[in-house]
């Protein structure tokens, strides 16, 4: 086998392997609830598959005069076709297996790299003579493999994942591999009849898989996210797949980011209030006159909609990492106006990076209702270093209000950094100056507050007055004073960038 063909196969297998790694991580991350361990577990099985493939390849490499004849290329081609066909079926297979799974599924599809892993030593064996330049030539193959992998990272991770669904990218990869298989077959020294037969076989097999795609990938995220609990016929109202992740919305308005609860489309503090939105309204009790507000994380936009309409707020900057959340706003009337509100500016960036790149920005209130404390990357927005960064961006008398998601460690970290604090349900308000909770001021603000021109509470309506009383009782009943909180979190180890908090628990 010629070195050039070996280089092309090594590059293409690197591209396909890394592209599938990205797709597997996207799908497995949803199945595993965005845990920090998702990536190393998937990477571990991926590498284990490559390692076992290398081991297996040694059996096929016993021939020590490998570069003669077309048999090596036929063997490589057969491996190539089989590996790519199996890879295409990996995600539908994982989704199907998920429907029988209770709890976190194993990322077994990573093991399928056993076939792709066998390809690299195989092409090295057949493409590189065992002479003194073997190390150098293998390095070319290795580089070709890495170039293919880097192309997968850039092309698939940066572009395809933003414009195509998982099913679409899988189809593109299968189509590319069918083309590659046809080129390899053309060099296999087959007779015209044999070549035609092989091409028809590849075309029928690959075409059949592509035709079955809509069935194979149907309700992919419903099955992956809810697994054995998936109800027959259940469908998400919206599924947004882009390079920043996967957002799903259930028919009841619950929104999920990477398979984890991320809020509900709801701005009404009355009734069931499934997203505890009353905490956003409580901000008016914690700061006397918030004018400039920064919100890290948009999600459903419900919190942003409430905060943007709090009396006195003149400017709300929202920093969100995934543009997909903004695209959903238009579908939900409770938050649709947020996208056009002149007071609101939505920026797409990592929240922490935005703070570091805007060192002079100061805010009266900074709100972070971002992610659950056990999710991967949560320490980026819960650590002592992050709290100190936030502190540097508060105006005099400013308040940082964030969701601890009931983590003692997150609470303790913030109370170590800020000398004043008040708990509100699972949220915590912290500041450098005393926080005066003024429910009278809050009540007056609620009676002035309008969303989309509609009063939230009308002073003259008995029903609204009773609802406001109930809300006031709810806010005051959820407050937790600092001494009690310090006692409750006494044994908690603060979160730091180094220990990464709960991420690896």
């Amino acid at each position: 086998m010629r070195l050039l063909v070996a280089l092309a196969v090594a590059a293409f297998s690197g591209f396909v392997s890394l592209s599938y790694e990205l797709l597997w991580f996207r799908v497995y991350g949803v199945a595993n609830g965005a845990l920090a361990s998702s990536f190393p577990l998937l990477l571990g099985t991926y590498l284990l598959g490559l390692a076992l493939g290398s081991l297996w390849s040694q059996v096929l490499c016993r021939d020590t005069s490998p570069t003669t004849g077309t048999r090596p290329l036929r063997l490589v081609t057969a491996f190539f076709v089989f590996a790519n066909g199996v890879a295409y079926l990996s995600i539908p297979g994982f989704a199907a297996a998920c429907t029988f799974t209770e709890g976190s599924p194993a990322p077994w599809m990573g093991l399928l790299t056993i076939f792709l892993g066998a390809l690299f030593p195989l092409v090295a064996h057949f493409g590189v003579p065992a002479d003194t330049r073997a190390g150098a030539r293998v390095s070319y193959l290795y580089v070709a493999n890495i170039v293919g992998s880097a192309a997968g990272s850039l092309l698939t991770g940066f572009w395809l994942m933003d414009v195509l669904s998982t099913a679409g990218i899988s189809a593109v990869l299968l189509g590319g591999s069918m083309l590659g298989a046809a080129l390899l077959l053309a060099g296999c020294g087959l007779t015209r009849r044999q070549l035609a037969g092989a091409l028809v076989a590849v075309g029928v097999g690959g075409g059949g898989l592509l035709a079955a795609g809509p069935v194979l990938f149907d309700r992919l995220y419903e099955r992956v996210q809810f697994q054995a609990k998936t109800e027959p016929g259940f469908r998400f109202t919206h599924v947004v797949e882009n390079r920043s992740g996967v957002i799903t919305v259930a028919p009841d308005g619950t929104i999920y980011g990477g398979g984890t609860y991320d809020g509900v489309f709801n701005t009404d503090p009355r009734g069931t209030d499934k997203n505890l939105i009353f905490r956003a309204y409580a901000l008016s009790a914690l700061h006397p006159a918030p004018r400039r507000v920064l919100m890290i994380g948009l999600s459903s936009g419900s919190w942003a909609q409430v905060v943007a309409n709090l009396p006195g707020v003149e400017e709300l900057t929202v920093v969100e990492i995934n543009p997909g959340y903004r695209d959903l706003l238009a579908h939900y009337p409770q938050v649709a106006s947020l996208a056009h509100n002149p007071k609101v500016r939505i920026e797409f960036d990592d929240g922490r990076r935005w703070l570091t790149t805007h060192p002079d920005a100061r805010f009266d209130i900074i709100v972070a209702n971002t992610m659950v404390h056990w999710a991967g990357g949560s320490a980026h927005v819960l650590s002592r270093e992050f709290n100190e960064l936030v502190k540097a961006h508060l105006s005099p008398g400013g308040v940082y209000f964030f969701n601890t998601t009931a983590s003692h460690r997150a609470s303790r970290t913030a109370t170590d950094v800020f000398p004043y604090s008040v708990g509100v349900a699972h949220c915590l308000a912290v500041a450098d100056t005393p926080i005066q909770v003024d429910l009278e001021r809050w009540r007056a603000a609620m009676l002035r507050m309008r969303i989309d021109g509609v009063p939230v509470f009308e002073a003259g309506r008995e029903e609204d007055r009773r609802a406001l009383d109930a809300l006031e009782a709810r806010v005051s009943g959820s407050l937790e004073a600092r001494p009690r909180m310090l006692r409750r979190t006494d044994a908690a180890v603060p979160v730091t960038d180094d220990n990464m908090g709960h991420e690896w628990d």
Partner: protein
Amino acid sequence: MRATLSAPEPLVPESPVMDPLAEPRSAAGVLPLRWVAPVFFASGFSALLYQTVWQRALFTHYGTNVESVTVIVTAFMVGLGAGSLLGGVYSRDPRRPALLAFCLVEAAIGLFGLVSLPLIEKVGALTLGMGTLGTGVVSLLLVLVPTTLMGATLPVLVAFAVRLWGNVGRSVGALYFVNTLGSAAASFAAAFFVMSHLGQAGTVQLAAGLNLGVALLVSLVLRRGRA
């Protein structure tokens, strides 16, 4: 793993490519093979630990948005590719000592590892606010030296193994197997134990300790070979 490297085939080159000047006699003979598997496993183990922690540390400074993630991952690959080419160039001359080079490379990776987190912290603080291109360039510069060294290990050891076995597929397969298996083991270890118990600094220290231990072990083997 060891069974793979001491397969029933004779450990004698089947093509006359071995140069007796390449390594001290016993270092090029059977003895080092006992060491190559575990040390290359440890090398792969430590490399994956570094990658896990360095990516995490770089994300802290440059953000976890997909642009940063992509450029950082690509920077790792560029380093590994460059290292592979350099290792390949080095291995062209069979008189060059492959095991000694491997030993020095491992020591250099370990020494870099020890200073890596403070270095990332300092550079990250100095380069705040850079765009995607700037992030890519700085990330590349930060990881270029260690990943180049890591990338160089495979072709150097392949050249060594081919001189012993005269079989490229078997050499690449065996070395790729133990090295990748080490990385896979490190992934599982990171997920279940290392990151939660050691944190970022402790994980990097463990990886550096493995590199320096590997370098020490190989140097002892080489000294025994010369004795």
